[in-house]
C-alpha cells in the first residue's frame, strides 16, 4: 500500500504523525491534513505515547543509571539538543513547530507548510489518548472489531433505520467482550456458574484422558508382553542405561516445562509480580469465551482445508516423479520441488503476501485480470473447461469410494459428504437465482458462462471469505516437495512383480495406481494422515501471523495463533496455557492412536 503512495499512484494516505513519517516525506511534494471530525463533532484522532521502562532484574545501580537517563531524555535539555541537531543538519522544517518556537528558531516556522502546523495543533487539541488499563496492550483489536464487522456486513450502505440497531448490537457485544475478557469485570454469580462448569469439564476431560491412557497402557503392556523375554539382569542395566540420556533429556525439557505450564494454567501468572492462585478461573473464562470457540471453529476449518487440499499433492507428486524417464530429470525435478522448503517459512509467507496484494498491481490479480483480455469465444471455452474440470473432480469424489473396496465405510461416507457439500456450493447461485427471480434469473446466471470475463481484482488475504484459503495455499505449495520424499521412498517398497502381474491382467495406469500403489501404501498413508492432523492443529501459527496477523477481522485466527496472542501479546500466560492444555489433551488421543497403529508396523526398505 505504501508503495502505491510512494510511486504516486494514489494521492492520499492515512497514517500517524510521527518523527519517522515526517522524515520520510518531502514538504515540497506532500501536504498534511488532520483527521476530520465525526459527523457529531467528536474528535477522531488518537494520541499515542512512548513508554520507557527499566528491566526489573537489573541491579539498583543499573536502575539508578537508567532512571537518570530517562530523566535526561524526557527533560528540556535533551529536547533542545535534538532540535538543535535537526536544525544544524538541515532538517529544521521537520521539527514540531511548538518546539521550534520554544527553543528559539522562529525563522524556521516560515519554512513549514501552513497545513502542517494546523495539523499538529489540531492533533494535540482533538486527539484522544489510547485507553490504558488492565490487559489493554492490544485494545485496538477488540475496539476495531465492531467497525470491521460493520464494514463486512456493509451496514454503511443500508438505510439508517435498519443499520443503526445492528451497529448498536455490535457495540454492545464489543463492550461486553472487553469488560469480561480484558478488564475481568465479571459479576460473581456468573463467575461462580462458570467455575462449576469448568470444574466439571476439567474433571470430565481428565477422566477421559486417564481412561484412554489406561487403555493404551494396557494395550502396550500386551504388546510388550509378546515381545520381551527373560534376559540376564546385566542386559537390562545396559539397555536402560543407554536409554537414560534420551529419557532424561525429554523428561527435563519436555515434561518439566509441561508441568510448569500446568501450574501456570491454574494461576494468574505474572512475569514480574508474584503470581496468585486462580483455581479453575482461567479454564472457566476460556470455556465461556466466544473468541476461544471461534478459534476452535476456525482451526477445524483450517485443518479441513489443509488436509483436504494439502494431503494428496505430495503423494501425487511422488507418483509423478517416480515415473519420470531419466535419472537426471528425476534429480532435477526433485531438487526443483524441494526449493521452497529451502528458504525459511516466514520468508515464503512474506513473498506470498506480496503476491496476494489486493490492488490491481498485485501479481495474482494481474494474472487474473489478464483473463479479461480474452475474446468472447476463448473466454467461454476457458470457463466451460474450468467448470468441466470441477465437475470431473466431483464425479471422481463420488466414483472413487464406489470402486475402491479397500476404503473403509467411514471414509467413504466422508468423501461422499464432501462431494455433496461441494456440489451444493456449486449449485447455490443457480438455486438462489431460481428462488429469487424464477427462470429468467436462472437463465441469467447460466448465461454468465458465455462471453468474455469481467473480473475484478480480488481481495485475497484481505477478504474474509478467501482469507483462510489464501493462507493454506502457501504451506501446501512449500510442503509438496519436502513431503514427497517420504512417499518416493515408500513407492520403492512396492514390488514390481505386482505391477507386472496386474498388467498381464490388462490393468491400465489408473487401475494400477488405485488397486496396487495406494493399497500398498495404505498403512503409511493412515499414519501420515494422523501426523498431518496433529501437525495442522498445532502448526500454522507463525505462518498465519506473517501473512494476515489473524486475518481480516479474526477470519484466520486459529487456536494456536489465539494462544500466541494471549500469551505473548496480551501477556495473559495463565489463560494462554489453559487453552494450550485443552488443545493438547484433545490431541493426545490422536498421538496415542498413531502410536497404536505404529506398534503394529514392521519396517520395510526399498530396493
Amino acid at each position, binding site marked *: 500500500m505504501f508503495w502505491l503512495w510512494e510511486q504516486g499512484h494514489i494521492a492520499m494516505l492515512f497514517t500517524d504523525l510521527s518523527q519517522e513519517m515526517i522524515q520520510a516525506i518531502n514538504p515540497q*511534494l506532500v501536504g498534511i491534513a488532520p483527521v476530520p471530525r465525526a459527523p457529531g463533532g467528536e474528535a477522531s484522532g488518537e494520541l499515542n505515547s512512548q513508554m520507557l521502562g527499566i528491566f526489573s532484574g537489573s541491579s539498583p545501580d543499573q536502575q539508578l543509571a537508567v532512571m537518570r537517563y530517562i530523566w535526561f531524555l524526557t527533560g528540556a535539555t535533551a529536547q533542545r539538543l535534538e532540535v538543535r541537531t535537526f536544525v544544524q543538519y538541515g532538517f529544521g522544517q521537520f521539527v514540531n513547530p511548538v518546539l521550534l518556537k520554544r527553543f528559539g528558531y522562529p525563522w524556521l516556522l516560515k519554512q513549514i507548510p501552513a497545513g502542517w502546523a494546523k495539523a499538529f495543533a489540531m492533533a494535540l487539541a482533538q486527539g484522544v489518548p489510547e485507553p490504558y488499563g488492565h490487559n489493554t496492550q492490544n485494545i485496538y483489536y477488540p475496539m476495531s472489531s465492531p467497525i470491521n464487522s460493520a464494514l463486512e456486513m456493509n451496514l454503511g450502505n443500508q438505510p439508517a433505520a435498519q443499520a443503526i440497531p445492528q451497529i448498536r448490537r455490535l457495540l454492545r457485544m464489543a463492550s461486553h467482550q472487553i469488560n469480561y475478557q480484558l478488564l475481568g469485570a465479571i459479576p460473581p454469580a456468573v463467575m461462580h456458574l462458570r467455575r462449576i462448569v469448568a470444574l466439571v469439564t476439567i474433571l470430565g476431560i481428565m477422566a477421559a484422558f486417564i481412561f484412554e491412557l489406561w487403555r493404551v497402557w494396557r494395550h502396550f503392556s500386551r504388546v510388550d508382553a509378546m515381545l*520381551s523375554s527373560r534376559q540376564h539382569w546385566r542386559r537390562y542395566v*545396559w539397555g536402560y542405561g543407554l*536409554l537414560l540420556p534420551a*529419557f532424561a*533429556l525429554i523428561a527435563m525439557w519436555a515434561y518439566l516445562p509441561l508441568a510448569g505450564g500446568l501450574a501456570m494454567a491454574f494461576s494468574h501468572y505474572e512475569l514480574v509480580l508474584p503470581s496468585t492462585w486462580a483455581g479453575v478461573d482461567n479454564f472457566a473464562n476460556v470455556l465461556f469465551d466466544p473468541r476461544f470457540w471461534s478459534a476452535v471453529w476456525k482451526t477445524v476449518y483450517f485443518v479441513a482445508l489443509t488436509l483436504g487440499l494439502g494431503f494428496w499433492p505430495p503423494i501425487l507428486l511422488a507418483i509423478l516423479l517416480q*515415473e*519420470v524417464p531419466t535419472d537426471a530429470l528425476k534429480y532435477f525435478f526433485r531438487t526443483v520441488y524441494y526449493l521452497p522448503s529451502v528458504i*525459511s517459512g516466514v520468508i515464503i509467507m512474506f513473498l*506470498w503476501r506480496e503476491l496476494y496484494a489486493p490492488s490491481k498491481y498485485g501479481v495474482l490479480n494481474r494474472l487474473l485480470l489478464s483473463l479479461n483480455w480474452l475474446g468472447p469465444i476463448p473466454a467461454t471455452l476457458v470457463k466451460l473447461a474450468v467448470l468441466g474440470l470441477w465437475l470431473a473432480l466431483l464425479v471422481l469424489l463420488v466414483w472413487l469410494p464406489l470402486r475402491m473396496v479397500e476404503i473403509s465405510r467411514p471414509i467413504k461416507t466422508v468423501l461422499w459428504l464432501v462431494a455433496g457439500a461441494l456440489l451444493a456450493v456449486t449449485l447455490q447461485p443457480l438455486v438462489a437465482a431460481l428462488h429469487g427471480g424464477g427462470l429468467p434469473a436462472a437463465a441469467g446466471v447460466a448465461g454468465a458462462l458465455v462471453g468474455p470475463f469481467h473480473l475484478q481484482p480480488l481481495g485475497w488475504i484481505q477478504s474474509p471469505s478467501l482469507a483462510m484459503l489464501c493462507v493454506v495455499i502457501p504451506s501446501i505449495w512449500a510442503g509438496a516437495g519436502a513431503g514427497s520424499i517420504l512417499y518416493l521412498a515408500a513407492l520403492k517398497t512396492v514390488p514390481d512383480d505386482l505391477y507386472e502381474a496386474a498388467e498381464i491382467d490388462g490393468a491400465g495406469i489408473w487401475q494400477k495406481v488405485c488397486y496396487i500403489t495406494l493399497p500398498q501404501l495404505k498403512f503409511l498413508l493412515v499414519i501420515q494422515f494422523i501426523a498431518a492432523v496433529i501437525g495442522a492443529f498445532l502448526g500454522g501459527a507463525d505462518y498465519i501471523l506473517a501473512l494476515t496477523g489473524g486475518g481480516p477481522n479474526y477470519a484466520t485466527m486459529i487456536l494456536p495463533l489465539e494462544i500466541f496472542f494471549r500469551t505473548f501479546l496480551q501477556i495473559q500466560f495463565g489463560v494462554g496455557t489453559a487453552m494450550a492444555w485443552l488443545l493438547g489433551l484433545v490431541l493426545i488421543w490422536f498421538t496415542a492412536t498413531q502410536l497404536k497403529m505404529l506398534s503394529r508396523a514392521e519396517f520395510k526398505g526399498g530396493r
Partner: protein
Amino acid sequence: MPIISRAETRSRRGKLVLLAIVAVLSLGGVTMVYPFLLMLSGSMRSQMDEASLNLIPSFLFSDKALYRRFLETKYDQDVGTLNRDSHQHAYTFSDAAVPPRLVRRRITDFRAFVRQSKIPFFWWVLGGTVGYQTTPGNLRALRARLEQRFHGHLRAFSRAVGSPTSAWDLITPGVPQWLSQRFSYRPDAIWAMYFQMFRQSPLAQRDILSITGYFLQTVIAPAYGLSSVAAYNQAHVRPIRSFRTFVLPRRVPSHVQPLLREEWIDFVRGQLNPSFVVLKGVSTASWQEWLRQRYRTLAALNGAWRTRFTAFDAVALPQGRWLSGAKAQDYLAFLDRLSPAHYRLWDLGYAWRDWLRRHYRHSIAALNAAGQTRYRRFSQARIPMAELEYSYVRQHALALRWRYATRNYVNVLDGMLFQGRALLNTAIYCLLAILAALVVNPLAAYALSRFRLRGTYKILLILMATMAFPPMVTMIPNFIILRQLHLLNTFAALILPAIANGYMIFLLKGFFDSLPPELYEAARLDGASELRLFVQLTLALSQPILAWVTLGAFTAAYTNFLGALIVCPAQHMWTISVWLYQFEQQANPPAVYAAVLIASIPTFLVFLLAQRTIIRGIVVPVEK
C-alpha cells in the same frame, strides 16, 4: 518407473503419458521456481523499484533506468535534493528527467571550467554518502578507508573523532549542509577522509549546490508551492514561465519587484550561509573598523575567532571563503548593517556563467552555436550536470550495472560475515545439534530395539506423548528453567531442549528392527563387543536413516528462529535466523531478499548431499 512398464513406454500411448507427466511436472516446477526468480530479481533492486515485479530489473538493460538508479544513489535517495540541485520537480526517482541528447561541447566546456577555476569545497558535495536502509558505495569506501587508515583500531579512531564508536559500520557522516546558515563542522578524521575522497571522485559523482534551488525550497515552496507557477505569479509583479528556468538574481532585485526583493533579503540575511555572500563596493577598512568597534581588543578577536592576527589591519574581508563559528556570526552581523545593494551571491552556477561570458567573449550567439542551446542571456545558462552524469553512466554502464546488482549482496555478506558472529554461531550450533542428535537418538533406539526391554512401547509412548502439545506451552517454562540454570546465551540453551526427538527414536528403532538378526548372531559368534555391534554393524548399515536424522536436525536447528531469539537474545550469540529477523526490521526489502537467498544456500547444499542417500534406503512402516 514401475507403474508404467517398460513395454508400455515404447507404445505411443505410453510415450504420450510420459510427455504429459513431464509437462505437468514442468508446469508445477515453474510455480516453484518463479518466486525464487522474483526474489532473485528483487534482491538486485533499490528503493526506487523495489515493488516492481518484472523478472529482470530494468536497469540491467535500459540506460535510462540505469541513469535514474545512478541518480537515486548519488542524491542519497532524497528526491528533494535532486529537485533542488537540478531544478526539476520529480515525485520519485523513476520520474527523474533524462537528458534528451548529449552535446559533447557542453561537457568539455564544463570540464575546462572546473580545471581552470578554483572551486571552494563548500560549493559542492560528494554524492552517495548516505543511504536509507542501505549502504551506498561511497559510504562503504569511506568506512573501509577509515578502517585502513587507523589499522582497525576503533579506540584510536574514536579518540581522533572525539566521540565513541562501537563498530566501523556505524560511522555515518551525513551530508554536509553547506548552504544552511546554521551548519557548522569541526575538522576531524572523518572530514579529512571525506575531503580526500571528494578530491579523488569523478565529476559526475559530485552534487553541485544551487542557491536558486535552496531559495525555491525554503522560501517559495512553503508559501506558494512548486507544482505550478500560478500562485507565485499571482503574488509577484513579474511572472515567470516555470520554476525550471527560474534563476535567483545575484544582486538584490530593485524596488520594482517589492515582494521578491523582500524575500531575497530575508533569504540572504536569514537562511543562506554567509560564505555564499560576497560584498561589492565595501572596503576592507570598514570591515576592520567594524570589528574593532565590536571587539575593542585584538586579544578578544583572536580569542573568539581562534586566530593569531597581529593587528586589525591584517584581517581580510571574507570573499568566498568558508565561514564558521564566531567569524560567521560577525560577518552576518556586518551584512545586516550594510545596504543590500552591496550583496552579491556567489556559487558554482554563477561562477560558471561568468566563465562562459569570458570564454565566449560575451557573445550569446557563439554560446548557442557551440552548445546547441537557445539561451537568450548568459544568466540562463545551466550547468550541464545531467549531461555529465548521463555520459558518465553510459561510459561506465557495465561496471555500474554490476555494482548495483550486487550491492545488496555485498552489504548482507558484510553484515553476516564480518560484523558479529552470526555465521560462526550458526555453524557451531548446527554441528553440535547434528552430533548430539546422532549420538543420543540412535543410542536410545538401539536400546529399545536390541535389548528387548520390558515396556518398550510404553517407553516409546512416554517419549512421544509430549509432541501433542503446542510449542507455546513449553517455551516460557523452558526459558525460566534455562535462566535458573544460568544457561541463557550459551549453546547449551539452543541445543538441549531439542536433542531427543521421540519420532526420530521411533523411526530409528524401526530401522534397526529391520536389520537381519543373523548378522548380529554371526558377529557375536566372532566375538564382537556390544560397542562394536553398535558402531560397526548398526550405524554402518543405517546410513539412510541417519542421513534423514541429520537432515531433520540440521533443518530444525538452522530454521529455529523463535526459540533461538528467546534463549539467546544477546547479540554475540545470534544465529543466522535471528540475525535475518533483526536485519529485516531495518533493511529495505531488496536487501532482505538478498539475505534470505544467501541464508538458504546451506540448507540447499545439505539437501543436495543427503537426497540420494535418503531416498535410496529409507524404510517406511508397513502393516505386519
